């Protein structure tokens, strides 16, 4: 618990500074756009109508989608830029709307008085309209601030580190401490900025110079402090670093020439436990070869693929079935090796992406049930379920029942009468353990299959498509022979059981992904039965 806490604390500088940088810069640009635009719009009904309608339209796009859309719109760029663009757009509406209403709804007598005493339009704006509309405008800015600070947590999947990393990683690894960390710091940051802006407005309105300067100073110190936090040595080094350092020294004497010395390699990862562990594992190997590794975690699946294609990242782990259905848009199931070959060909020819030999395990969809429940039904394979279909309930993530493989499994095995329930994957394993459902559409490498005493039913007619884990290298990265060699080192070394155990350690034993990667690393080092990987030395 306290180790978890100190690990999370060690991540704070990076996440908080990323979060602050994104939120504050997006807010500043957003205000810089919406204030003048609002003033302009307040001058004529003809512009204010369409302008506000457009801004509202942007607001109705779900924030997650807006962030994700920025990636293709900006030519596949990931990280700060698309997040910054989306958050800026997101921050425009509240300030724009309140600027327009704040000015339009001023007492006409006061506006007329401004004319009457001989003010120019500019003087009227600065001396009368803006000061009087300030409370309304500032209320808009405060709304924008709270929105943007909250929404910034969603920039994690497009590769911009933020406090959202705590939340995404925590939800996937069931590390509630991490989730709470992310939520609490995001909330504290939002409340802090909101209150500082409020104080600045009060100071301005009531002309409390000291209060204003004080609030401004606190704001600057916190923002600057947050941004530069990663540069300050907190003294508390994370266990992750300690583990890395340890394995580094261990292997230092083994390694003769460090083939990747001084090179920077960028690894991407999707948003679940297995991906965190594998990216840590590959990082470990590359660091050993002397590379400087940058890992971008918690990225959306298709965003990762585009980032790889554009050489924004160098490598990541994907699954043959995922490429097959979502990128190649095929829906027929084919045999495991045949799929691997077709996928590899397709990626090379269509996208210039290199597929390294499979890691050895599949993270496929499959049916799992309680070990003690299976014999009572006489079930060893999916084919045995048909006679009981009417009484059975199967749970799966909502996406599962929408995928072509569910339709194919249902039709292949004649399970049309079965009852289906969609639920989040975090909860379905417990549901089957607690006998609330009979079957679940499980992920074959999930650690809870071991921990909850579940069995995976055979799929004799191969209705579920294969999902072999494969390492993909970007068009540029594959020019680097040393990198190919280093990543191919893992080929066929990680079996289903091994991966499941590593996942279990994170999901159920509350180990960190780095610790699980360490376990995998030792296990793969020990195994010497690799006969399928000629690239390995």
């Amino acid at each position, binding site marked *: 618990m306290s180790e978890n806490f100190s690990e999370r604390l060690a991540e704070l500088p990076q996440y908080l500074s990323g979060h602050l940088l994104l939120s504050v810069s997006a807010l500043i640009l957003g205000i810089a756009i919406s204030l003048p635009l609002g003033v302009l719009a307040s001058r004529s009904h003809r512009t204010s109508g369409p302008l506000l309608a457009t801004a509202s339209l942007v607001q109705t796009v779900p924030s997650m989608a807006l962030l994700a859309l920025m990636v293709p719109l900006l030519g596949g760029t990931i990280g700060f830029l698309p997040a910054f663009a989306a958050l800026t757009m997101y921050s425009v509406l509240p300030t724009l709307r309140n600027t327009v209403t704040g000015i339009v709804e001023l007492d006409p007598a*006061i506006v*007329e*008085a401004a*004319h009457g*005493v*001989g003010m120019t339009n500019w003087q009227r704006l600065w*001396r*009368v309209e803006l*000061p009087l509309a300030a409370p309304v405008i500032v209320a808009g800015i405060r709304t924008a601030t709270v929105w943007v600070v909250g929404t910034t947590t969603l920039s994690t999947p497009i590769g911009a580190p933020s406090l959202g990393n705590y939340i995404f990683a925590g939800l996937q690894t069931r590390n509630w401490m991490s989730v709470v960390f992310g939520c609490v710091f995001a909330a504290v940051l939002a409340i802090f900025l909101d209150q500082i802006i409020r104080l600045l407005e009060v100071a301005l309105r009531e002309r409390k110079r000291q209060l204003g300067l004080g609030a401004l100073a606190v704001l600057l110190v916190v923002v600057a402090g947050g941004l530069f936090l990663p540069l300050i040595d907190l003294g508390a080094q994370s266990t992750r670093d300690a583990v890395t350092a340890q394995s580094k020294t261990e292997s230092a004497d083994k390694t003769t020439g460090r083939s990747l010395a001084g090179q920077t390699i960028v690894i991407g990862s999707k948003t679940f436990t297995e991906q965190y562990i594998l990216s840590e594992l590959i990082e470990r190997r590359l660091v050993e070869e002397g590379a400087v590794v940058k890992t971008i975690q918690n990225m959306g699946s298709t965003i990762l693929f585009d980032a790889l294609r554009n050489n924004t990242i160098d490598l990541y782990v994907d699954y043959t079935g995922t490429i097959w259905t979502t990128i190649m848009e095929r829906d027929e199931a084919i045999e495991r090796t045949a799929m691997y070959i077709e996928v590899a060909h397709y990626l090379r020819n269509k996208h210039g992406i290199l597929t390294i030999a499979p890691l050895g395990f599949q993270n496929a969809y499959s049916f799992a049930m309680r070990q003690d429940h299976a014999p009572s039904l006489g079930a060893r394979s999916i084919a045995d379920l048909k006679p009981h279909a009417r009484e059975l309930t199967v749970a799966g993530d909502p996406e599962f029942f929408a995928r072509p493989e569910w339709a194919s499994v249902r039709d292949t095995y004649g399970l049309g009468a079965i009852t289906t329930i969609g639920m989040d994957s975090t909860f379905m394993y417990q549901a089957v353990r607690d006998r609330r459902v009979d079957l679940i559409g499980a992920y074959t490498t999930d650690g809870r299959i071991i921990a909850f005493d579940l069995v995976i039913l055979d799929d004799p007619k191969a209705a579920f498509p294969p999902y072999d884990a494969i390492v993909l290298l970007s068009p540029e990265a594959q020019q680097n022979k040393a990198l190919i060699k280093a990543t191919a080192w893992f080929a066929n070394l990680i079996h289903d059981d091994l991966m499941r155990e590593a996942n279990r350690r994170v999901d159920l034993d509350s180990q960190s992904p780095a610790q699980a990667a360490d376990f995998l690393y030792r296990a793969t080092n020990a195994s010497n039965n690799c006969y399928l990987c000629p690239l390995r030395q």
Partner: protein
Amino acid sequence: MKRRRRTKNPKSRPVLRVKRVSKIFADGGRAVSDVSFDAVEGELIVILGESGCGKTTTLKMINRLIDASNGSVEINGQNVSRIDPVHLRRTIGYVFQGIGLFSHMTVAENVGITPALLHWDEERIQIRVDELLAMVRLEPEKYRNRMPAELSGGQQQRVGFARALATSPSVILLDEPFGALDPITRDTLQHEFKHIQRSLNLTGVLVTHDVTEALLLADRILVMKSGTIVQFGTARDLVASPASLYVAELMDMPKRQMRQLESVVG
């Protein structure tokens, strides 16, 4: 009395001359038709008429808050249409129907706004503000730094007068300046205003729908109805030889009210 005689002196050159102005708004509504009048130095003209008859529109055409559709306005012989409206308004005092103080500025800042727009130096503005506050009977030390919300209605309109007088304008325009006040405050302020106007020899145009007020304050009264002039003359002219039944009834109104009052009080 002395000034009243002077207003009748045809040799005095008018400070303000309004010649056959009309206003047709963009919506086609004809608010003012062919209105002419003039004011000599130190003279207070009162425009009297019912609500909606075009008084405010006429007043605003003088400082170009509204531009006239036809006709011309001259101040000291210069056609206002040839003066930059911002500059023009800084030389004409204006007291608003709804008082119109800037609620985010102190009393001193409100009074000193036009001098500030004219880039007077800080010290000169301060001296002028104190002088004006004293003139409208608000102790400068006490009221200078108050916000308008911290003043009574009467005090607010005193500040409104002070603001209008800040740059010693050649003409002062007042749109129902006492309209929002209670009867006792109104009475006090009317007398004080008349006193200030006389002692500074201010040329002004005041708009009201209150006959008694017009009779009390005006050197000459311009009676308007539906955007046109019904009669223009001194109170005595209007009472002695009303141009129409409407004017006669209007002038008789205070007396009628008096009689009604007596019959009630007994």
